[in-house]
């Protein structure tokens, strides 16, 4: 494709130029992105050189995360709404049961930790005085240790969306199931599932390290659109389109968005947000697919869709809604 032979050196210099601009130019626009995409499509050596340059750039970013903690210039304390205080006693008891495993995996905290929780169907935003924000989804428990020289959160259970103000002196670290997510100036979502932890990166850069107690730790550097699933001994990273990522964050507006999701999946998702559980036992019904946006706390909307679109029956009894043919 390239008519003039391109020396590897020239290609590398051009790739580095693109990568550096892409990461540091605050005026980076859609037109710039298009120009980059064009350049990448021009020749495979451009693409490979760009991947190599970005990898190199990403590696230097590790310096910031691995840098030893340093006394902060500004003291940060949690400024969350006061009415949580009342709930803390109850939450601490719950944490003691469900959080024991995760707790043991991170260093003994020298700073007082605070525990926050949401009940089923609740959505809560924690605003930290450093400008960072944590949105807690339904049925979630987390412990935050935001203090002198450190910013750490343990996601004991559930799901949260983090919008972190970067501070290279104090990396923001989220522990979930022993895995460690180190923010490098980021917006990301973490969901703690029974056997795995899912991290979706919306913006910025973050590093995921698997359970540090395991035989061999794995780590992955996440870029926007990356979704990492960490289990006890592996990390897999896949790319998700921006639209899917935003669907998976619709809970922040109190919605659930499904795009060709199986009814079984819809029910499972819905059940996370409601005490009244939807039950589907018929596999044929479970496989029906749905497209749409539903309020997370509105059972009626789902039931009506099941009735009107699929002609299904819905029976309510003992806090359960059974959908069948």
């Amino acid at each position: 494709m390239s008519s003039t032979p391109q020396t590897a050196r020239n290609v590398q210099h051009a790739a580095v130029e693109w990568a550096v601009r892409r990461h540091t130019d605050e005026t980076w626009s859609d037109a710039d992105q298009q120009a980059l995409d064009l350049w990448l499509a021009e020749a495979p050596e451009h693409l490979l050189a760009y991947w190599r340059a970005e990898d190199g750039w990403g590696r230097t970013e590790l310096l910031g995360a691995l840098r030893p903690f340093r006394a902060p210039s500004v003291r940060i304390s949690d400024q969350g709404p006061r009415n949580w205080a009342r709930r803390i006693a109850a939450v601490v008891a719950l944490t003691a049961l469900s959080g024991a495993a995760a707790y043991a995996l991170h260093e003994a905290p020298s700073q007082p930790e605070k525990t926050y929780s949401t009940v089923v169907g609740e959505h809560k935003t924690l605003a930290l005085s450093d400008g960072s924000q944590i949105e807690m989804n339904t049925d979630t428990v987390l412990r935050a240790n935001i203090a002198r020289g450190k910013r750490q959160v343990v996601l004991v259970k559930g799901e949260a969306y983090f919008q972190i103000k970067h501070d290279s002196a104090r990396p923001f670290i989220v522990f979930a199931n022993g895995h460690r997510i180190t923010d490098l100036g980021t917006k990301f979502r973490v969901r703690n599932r029974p056997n795995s932890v899912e991290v979706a990166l919306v913006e910025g850069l973050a590093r995921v390290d698997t359970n540090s107690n395991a035989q061999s730790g794995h780590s992955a550097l996440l870029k926007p659109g990356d979704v990492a699933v960490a289990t006890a001994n592996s990390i897999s990273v896949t790319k998700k389109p921006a639209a899917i990522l935003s669907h998976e964050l619709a809970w922040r507006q109190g919605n659930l968005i499904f795009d060709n999701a199986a009814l079984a999946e819809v029910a499972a998702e819905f059940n996370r947000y409601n005490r009244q559980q939807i039950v589907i036992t018929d596999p044929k019904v479970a496989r029906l697919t749905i497209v749409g946006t539903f309020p997370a706390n509105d059972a009626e909307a789902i039931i009506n869709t099941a009735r009107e679109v699929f002609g299904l029956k819905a029976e309510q009894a003992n806090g359960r809604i059974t959908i069948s043919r």
Partner: protein
Amino acid sequence: MGDTPQTSERSNDPRQTGAATVMHELRTWFVSEVLPLEQALMHYLQSNWRRADDLADIRQDIYLRLFEAAKERIPHPARPFLFTVARNILIDRYRRERIIPIDGVPDLESFAVATTEPGPDRRAIARDELRHLQAALDRLPPRCREAIVLRQVEGLSRKEIAQRMAISEKTVNRHLCDAMNLLLDMKSAGDAP
């Protein structure tokens, strides 16, 4: 998908998503499995090709051929495949330039052995990498180092770096690019202490 086509008003284009996934897989493979072998590859090339100026181009040829092959099927593990491609590319070059290597065809044996060795602990690699990175930073020209440290360690924006260093943003960009090129070269050569 399901057995209810009437509900799928918005259909994804599976081919497009598929292509994107493949490209992403290729990238992940290239970055996580091929690039970490670059030092070993360059060492192999150095001992089998005399003109140092050609090495980067030879590496580019190797990566290109590897990439073309990986589009069909991603080779696991990457190492033996990479070195086989490297050997073939070298042989092509010998032919083209009518060079008869004194030691005969490049020796793959010593590299093949390395593939069966158990890899070191990943955390050790991470620590090592950081040590190498810090050593490499120390070898950058002072202004380049200052710029990259302000950016990557201190997290300053390009504008803030320009103010701090009393230079234009354009010069900051130049320093950052120079720093990255030097770091890539050092990493590739494996001569960071």
